[in-house]
């Protein structure tokens, strides 16, 4: 019992993360109560996605992410790949919109219209396939640059900044891949272009993961500087971290491509 309580307690409580997760769950639940019917699987996918993000940031797991390279890589796999993947797959925009009062839903047409217009343009720019793919891979490389990684793990403020950028970029990318709403702001790519984009982001992730896995040098000194969660060979820790960056991260592309194809086939069947 005691261990369970310890595990559920956040190592570094973060109000913004807690509030964002509570809001995500709360809004969706209100949307369901107001009559939105996303279906069981999308709802489950959405809740699991949010729960995973919460689990890797606001439980004792976060302690291991801060003091083991491999655990940190798994945390980012959830924040950048798995969590946003599940959320975007659920396409929750409709349910979330149902939860909002009509007054709030009218904001983009109201006095703040120019601001929303600008946001929409910035968003569409970020969602250009080339830019979105570049950001998705670039942000992994950026935070894994040894000097930048060092400072991010040393300063608590930068640590949270890093995790937020990973999560937000993950949401942007997977939203673009799984978008199936005709009226949305997100550019609607053809299935072929989605699969091409998914294929293009794989080699750089594989290269980076393989480089880390096969490096005989200890690349990320910060974990020696801060101490590891338990005594483990630094190179073993690094190799596991490299494998997580390499294999499951690129597997997500394959899985997403299969899902995009399945949507396409289902679309054909319903057309026929």
């Amino acid at each position, binding site marked *: 019992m005691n261990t369970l309580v310890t595990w559920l307690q956040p190592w570094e409580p973060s109000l913004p993360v807690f509030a964002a997760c509570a809001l995500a769950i709360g809004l969706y639940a209100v949307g369901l109560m107001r009559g939105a019917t996303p279906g069981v699987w999308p709802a489950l996918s959405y809740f699991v996605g949010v729960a995973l993000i919460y689990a890797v940031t606001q439980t004792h797991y976060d302690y291991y992410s801060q003091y083991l390279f491999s655990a940190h890589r798994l945390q980012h796999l959830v924040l950048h790949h798995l969590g946003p993947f599940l959320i975007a797959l659920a396409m929750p925009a409709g349910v979330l919109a149902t939860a909002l009062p009509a007054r709030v839903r009218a904001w983009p047409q109201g006095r703040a219209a120019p601001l929303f217009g*600008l946001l929409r343009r910035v968003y569409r720019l970020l969602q250009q396939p080339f830019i979105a793919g570049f950001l998705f891979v670039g942000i992994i490389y950026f935070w894994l640059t040894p000097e930048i990684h*060092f400072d991010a793990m040393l300063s608590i403020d930068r640590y949270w900044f890093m995790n937020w950028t990973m999560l937000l970029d993950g949401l942007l990318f997977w939203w673009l891949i799984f978008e199936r709403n005709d009226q949305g702001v997100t550019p609607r790519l053809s299935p072929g272009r989605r699969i091409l984009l998914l294929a293009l982001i794989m080699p750089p992730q594989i290269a980076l993961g393989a480089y880390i896995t096969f490096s005989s040098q200890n690349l990320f000194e910060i974990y020696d500087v801060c*101490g590891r969660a338990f005594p483990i060979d630094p190179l073993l820790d690094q190799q596991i971290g490299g494998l997580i960056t390499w294999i499951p991260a690129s597997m997500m592309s394959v899985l997403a491509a299969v899902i995009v194809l399945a949507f396409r086939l289902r679309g054909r069947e319903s057309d026929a």
Partner: protein
Amino acid sequence: MPEHCIKRRLRAGLVLALALLLGACGGGDYQTKGIEGLLPDLAFRLTSESGESLTAADLRGAPTVVFFGFTHCPDVCPTAMARIAAATEAAGKDLDGELQVLFVSVDPGRDTPQRLADYTDFFSDRVTGATAPVERLRELTKRYRATFGYDEPNEFGDYNVSHSSAMYVFDAEGHARALFRPSDSVAAMAADLRRIARS
């Protein structure tokens, strides 16, 4: 507000944010790793090797180098202590004899004050040993983004301890200034110690 005006403001904001982010990355012009603004001021409550209570206030007025280790440590700790002893010697009289090295043991189960005193005397007069109950050590290491952990004991009761390998350098006012990593040279450490002692 016209749209182009919002756009200009947004662009100015973005440039400012980027400049702040890049500017904050430097951490000062140190030969080792500058950590100004990255870590909080020195604060602790420990039991010193003489068995008395020791707080950060007791060490104000001179730079302090803090290291987290344990006396049974086979390699990292003796190396670090030998390196800091060499660096303080190389920094010479600029240090004025005031600089303190605090060896914080994260293995209070085995490191008694007496054992700590014998250990630190071996390296330099500047080195003082201190420790605390595990819970308080956790708070202190967490404050400096460090941690420690224990292996299972072997048949002789010996166990390994994972701990931070860095030395944290604080100035006379207790502000975090530099971090000495295992990869930093003794000459670079001496230069930064001189610099921190002078300012």
